[in-house]
């Protein structure tokens, strides 16, 4: 197995989390923070503010009236959700273009957005706050692929060659061609950005949720299942034309029945039609 720290060092300069996202993370940790404090922090970045409001008004959130201010968004969605939207915008802006890799980044992000919708709906049925965590973990579960495509396009071409010649899943091809996979890479980057452990653990174990720490196993199971549902609905592409097998224990842990799964899939296809809202 390759040394992931060396792999990241070989990528060269990595973008750091923007000041506003780091500041939001600090504000969220402070129990005295108000919606107005969040508004002030975001007001320094009008572009980000506009994108957050566009996402908040998408059909995924389904609010009857239009939300026009960050203060309202914070009151309705909560601090964490608004920070997650800011984080999403930052990552999509920095890891969306990779002409040289042969990797279809638009299709990749569409797959991630579909996974996020599906994970959010599954999480919503499982407990308080799990939906917001599930949404952002779904969106960023394959972060390692987008970073690899931007920073090491030649490596991605090797992986795509193995996918084509050996008819294997992308992560299997990564291990054969490079000695590591996107799950390990994405988790290592999230650790460097000091993102919450549940995001790190979910990214690392979304192909093998049983290996996640006990406190994060449910969320890893949700994202594992949502990733597979997104593939079954042909939402974008994860870089291969295949679908992994559902881990039986993960499916059982979610407590879902197939009738509910079908309803979630149908609902998510409607929201997926609006996925362009996520792109700058």
């Amino acid at each position: 197995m390759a040394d992931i720290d060396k792999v990241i060092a070989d990528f060269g300069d990595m973008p750091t989390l923007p000041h506003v996202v780091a500041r939001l993370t600090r504000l969220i940790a402070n129990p005295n923070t108000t919606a107005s404090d969040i508004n002030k922090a975001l007001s320094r970045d009008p572009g980000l503010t506009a994108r957050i409001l566009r996402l908040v008004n998408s059909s995924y959130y389904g609010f009857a009236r239009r939300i026009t201010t960050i203060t309202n968004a914070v009151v309705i969605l909560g601090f964490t959700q608004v920070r997650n939207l800011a984080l999403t915008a930052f990552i999509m802006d920095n890891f969306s273009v990779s002409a040289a890799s042969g990797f279809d980044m638009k299709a990749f992000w569409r797959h991630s957005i579909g996974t996020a919708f599906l994970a959010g709906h599954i999480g919503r049925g499982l407990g308080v706050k799990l939906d917001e965590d599930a949404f952002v973990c779904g969106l960023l579960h394959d972060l390692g692929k987008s970073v690899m495509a931007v920073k090491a396009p030649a490596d991605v071409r090797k992986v795509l060659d193995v996918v084509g010649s050996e008819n294997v899943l992308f992560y299997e091809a990564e291990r054969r061609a490079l000695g590591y996979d996107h799950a390990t890479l994405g988790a290592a980057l999230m650790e460097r950005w000091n993102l919450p452990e549940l995001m790190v653990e979910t990214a690392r174990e979304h192909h093998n949720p049983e290996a996640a720490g006990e406190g994060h196993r449910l969320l890893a199971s949700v994202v594992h299942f949502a990733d597979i549902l997104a593939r079954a609905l042909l939402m974008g592409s994860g870089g291969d034309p295949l679908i992994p097998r559902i881990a039986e224990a993960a499916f059982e842990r979610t407590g879902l029945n197939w009738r509910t799964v079908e309803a979630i899939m149908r609902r998510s296809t409607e929201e997926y039609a609006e996925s362009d809202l996520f792109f700058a």
Partner: protein
Amino acid sequence: MPILSLSALKDGMILSNDAVDAAGAIVLPEGTILDTASLARLREAGVTRAAVKGRTTLRRRIAKARAQSAAGKPNEKPDHADAAVEDRLMRLAAMFARHRDDPLMRELLRIAILCAREGLVRG
């Protein structure tokens, strides 16, 4: 956006408008995915009809076009729609081929095929 009587509403359908009782009070909001509990709530509140999101638009469109074609009014669009659906079904068949013996994957494929046939899958 079909409006269906209570007896025709089924699990998994999605309300396209708020379901209201005789006094105009909202019983279930737009976007609710119907299940056994929500159907019981509609019954208890005396709701007799509700609007749900269309589920068979593509099938109807194709059937209409076939009828037009049979009547000598050719229409190319449905052939494209048919071809797109067939293409998606082929992709699903190839994708799931290695999981034929797995009961969970068989169930997922069944739903994916339904969604593809109804035009919900756009990939």
